[in-house]
């Protein structure tokens, strides 16, 4: 018998699992065969982070973002990043209203619950940074006036890993602001067959009905914050992050912000599992998605064609668990 600390936390957790299952089912009805990616996306949503989806074109990056946004009945905006995109195209502009003879703020696409930044690496660094600033601070400042963004606020940015002309790769500092980078990957044979069937006749995204409200998500986010992270787990997170900094195969290790993101994500990941406490498995499962995009391999590792994902996997496998 479990000795529970509070009934309310229990109820919210049960609700959360229930809502999460519904959202997950809804998204998966559009994106078949990618439960892990969907779960990670939900994790980020509940942990108040942002996702960077890095994958080849056409695997459903935008589709997933849309499905997620639609299933929780919140506002979703899509920004197609191009080289000529300006910061004001994202944040909005103050335009002179002839009728009231005043400047009036016209909010940009950033004022939404879910913002889909497609092909973010095609925009100029200036525009990128405008987006990233609002991601971190959850507010927009235009002409000296600050406009807060309403929660939940999540940016789902996509970028193509294949180097193409006219792209500006995200600098490390900007990549660090994304909680998770995930790859959707090609679907397996059955899933792809299913996709052909379902998407062939109609657009399933159109049939998607919201299963949760934005207010529900806000409550769930609050519940996730209550998830217990024990001392050994915090120690373990620090150990993992420190190991990336001291690893000979990495030129740049994970930042303190990465540690914070890892802990928050672990909380949400545990909550999605119906647990009110984080276990090492959560941290281990999230280490690569949360940390890998922030790391830079050393020259030797690059020569050896070792990706940060692999180096991180090795680190996690070798790092002993702290015991109480």
């Amino acid at each position, binding site marked *: *018998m479990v000795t*529970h600390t509070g009934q309310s936390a229990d109820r919210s957790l049960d609700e959360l699992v229930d809502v999460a299952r519904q959202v997950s089912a809804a998204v998966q009805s559009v994106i078949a065969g990618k439960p892990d990616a969907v779960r990670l996306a939900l994790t980020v949503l509940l942990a108040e982070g942002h996702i960077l989806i890095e994958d080849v074109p056409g695997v459903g990056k935008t589709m997933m973002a849309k499905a997620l946004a639609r299933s929780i009945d919140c506002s979703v905006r899509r920004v197609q990043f191009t080289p000529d995109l300006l910061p004001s195209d994202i944040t909005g502009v103050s335009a002179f209203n002839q009728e009231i003879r005043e400047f009036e703020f016209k909010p940009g696409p950033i004022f939404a619950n879910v913002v889909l930044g497609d092909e973010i690496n095609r925009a100029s660094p200036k525009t990128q940074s405008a987006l990233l600033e609002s991601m971190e601070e959850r507010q927009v400042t235009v002409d000296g006036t600050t406009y807060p963004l309403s929660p939940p606020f999540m940016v789902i940015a996509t970028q193509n890993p294949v180097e193409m002309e006219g792209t500006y790769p995200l600098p490390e500092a900007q990549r660090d602001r994304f909680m998770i980078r995930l790859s959707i990957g090609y679907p397996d044979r059955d899933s792809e067959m299913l996709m052909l069937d379902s998407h062939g006749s109609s657009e399933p995204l159109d049939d998607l009905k919201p299963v949760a409200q934005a207010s529900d998500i806000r409550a769930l986010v609050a519940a996730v914050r209550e998830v217990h992270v024990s001392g050994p*787990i915090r120690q373990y997170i620090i150990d993992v992050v420190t190991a990336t900094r001291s690893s000979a195969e990495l030129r740049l290790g994970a930042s303190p912000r990465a540690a914070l993101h890892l802990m928050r994500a672990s909380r949400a990941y545990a909550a999605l599992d119906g647990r*009110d*406490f984080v*276990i090492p498995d959560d941290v*281990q499962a999230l280490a690569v998605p949360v940390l890998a995009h922030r790391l830079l391999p050393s020259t030797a590792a690059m020569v050896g064609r070792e990706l940060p994902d692999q180096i991180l996997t090795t680190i996690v496998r070798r790092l*002993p*668990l702290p*015991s109480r």
Partner: protein
Amino acid sequence: MMNHRLTAAAALATVCASFSLFAVLSGASWLIQGIGAIVLIALAGTLTRAATAPAAIGATIAVLIASVPLMVGFGWAGLIGGLALIAVAALSATGNRTARGFAMLATYCSFLLIYLNILFADAHSYLWVIPSRASVTHLLRLPSQASPEFHSSPPVTATRPVDLVAVAGIGAVAIIVDYIAVRLRRPALAGLPLLLLFSVPVASNLKGFSFGQSISFAIAVAGYLTLLSTDGRQRLRMWGRLVTVRRITGADDGVTGPDTRDLAATGRRVGLAAICLAIAIPIALPTSKPHDIFSKLGNGTGGSGGGSSDETSPLTDIQQDLTEGKPLAILSYTTSEDAQQARQQYLGQWVMNYDQASQSWEVDYGKAQSILPPRMPYLVPGVQAGTTSTNSVTTSLDIGLQPAQTPVPVPYAPTRITGPGAKQLAEESGTLMVLADDQQKNMRVTVTSEVTDPTATQLYDDAQLMPPSIQNAFGNYKGPDASQLRSIAYKYTNGTTDPFLEAIDLQNWFRADFAYSLKPDLPNTSGWLLDFLDKGRRGYCVQFAVAFAVLARLVGIPSRVVVGFTAGTQSADGTWQVTSHDAHAWPELFFPGFGWVRFEPTPAGSAVGQGTAEAPAYTTKVHLGAVTPTPSPSSSTLPSTAPGKTSTDTLKGCHFLHANACRNPGAGGQSAASSAGSDDFPIGIPIAIVAVLLLASPALGRWVTRRRRWMASSTDSALALAAWSELHDDLTDYGIDTLPSDSPRTTVIRVAEAAHLRPVPRQALARIASAVERAQYSLATLPGARLRTDVAAVRKALASNATTPQRLRALLLPPSTVAAVVGALQSAGRATSWIDSSWPTMRHQFRRILPHRAS
């Protein structure tokens, strides 16, 4: 192949090893000369390793000088032989391997010969340097003159012959070491000849391993390690490091170099383990007696025979003499007494008195500063010559080798000493003696002594006053445990006031209740005496004599301990032969009118005690003048045997009337048997017990760990953690590996797959994992009451799926326990890692202190 550094290291190692000879040789002349030999051998070695031409020239000249005696002293044959040697040495210039090998050997030997010749036979040499036939003959003859010294107990006085033997030995070892270490480049092997040098003192009948020897051994080891280290450095310089090691950056002194920390740590660990083993194994062995390095030096017993002693004392020499495998002839004598009486006539050599200041028994002659030619016949204090109780006995002693400053063993009480050897007579403490300044060979002495033959009655009736000088000098004991010893003395002389009866009581007690053993197993502390009397009750003459003398003083009888020899064994021609096995110590008590009267507390007879010892007749037989012994103690004239006393009194009557019977074949036999039994204690049994314990210790350790783990856990959380540790130990025992990064859930999956667990144990395993997960990471815990059963279920499942060898190993040699021991050892090794962190700092500091070298 010039290698000066290694050559110097080899020479240094030999010098260091030579220090060990201090234990057997006195003085330092041999060492200085030995160092000279070592340096010369190093030079010779360097010469042999020079280029072919210089080496050949050097070898030819050395051989030319060294073969002079051969060429000039042995006619044509010698001349041809010498020339042949020179020719072969010169032939080495051609590079011929055989000729070079010979030249090398000849160079070493010639250098050593020339050196010895200069040192010991320069007078017989040409120009004090070049050996001649006479000088070589002299060199060959000298060692035979040293043989008497080598027969005496170490340390040997370093006379010239002794020096020659020592220097030649050191030189020979130096040759071998130089050859092996430098020429063959096998410095590790050079340890063998060095050990040879060190084995000399070990093989020289040294009893214990004294502090000085420990130091000399440490010096020798340091020298050897220096040699090894030098070789290691040389190899590094030549070939670079053989082991691939990580490079460290940012060391304290800014120097980037190979990371030798792991290597250094290995060295330290090996060293630590070696030291631990070296200390632990001798302690663990039941038969050995490790030197108590922590005991206070110069403790209360000093040389009085507690256990072992650092100082050489007549008392400590006895044990060595008695344990020597082959008896060494000391002297022979003829006496005017009949065999029966002669057998009881011991030959006293050293008189020991208790020194209150040092709290030990010291040689009384040591204080004999003034050696006066005494008047003869000498009046022995307390002995009334010519009375009815003394017999004039003439003893002619023939002593093979009489060491310097050592009294000649003579029967008590000598009144006249004559003969060719009796040139330096001395008197001290009322004893006449021969005490020569120099060593005497084949010494002949004739001693006339007044042998007291007191009867029991005489001793008992003796009512003369004790001379105050004797009482003051020999009557006090203020040593350790005096009060307890006094109570023991009173206990075993209870109800007696007469000194003689008290002494008899003590003697009988010792002979009845104590066992004879040359390995008394007594503590090397000042409290050994109490231990001997109270608990051990095993010892040899030294312990008996000292104990008897102390107890006698405590009941008021002046006493002393005499070290010398028993009467020895009579050979067919009537002469008495005294060997080292007759070495003995005995107590003497002072009785006015009789002087010092010998008692014999040591069990006698080859079966139960000292082979040739014999209790004096007046202590074993009834010599009550004309009184015939009667069976009734109460009817005797002895007042102390009042009726109705305790058994001690009955025994007392027995002492006098049935003394021989009362030597107590029963008790004595028993104690003797126990003594013999304990000497031949089957060592196999403790070894077997230790072996069984060692074999069972891993299983026992596992059991104890498990039990303690569960016992110490009371809360749910603690039970969960205990279950988890227990599960991991079980997994280790059954050879199922888990990673340190495995979470409880991962462990469940991994173990279930690896051990093919069925659903029931698998659920048990999952329950354990959930419990530990909650205990470690959650605020809430799961009840832990069932966990012990769950762990047992998983263990059972693991065992059922394991092979028989795995099961046996898990039962008898659980790897988890072994791993714990290894872990403990590793952490012990890591405890020394502070050296790593501080060494660069220390080096940096040291360099700052040193003046900078001019660039």
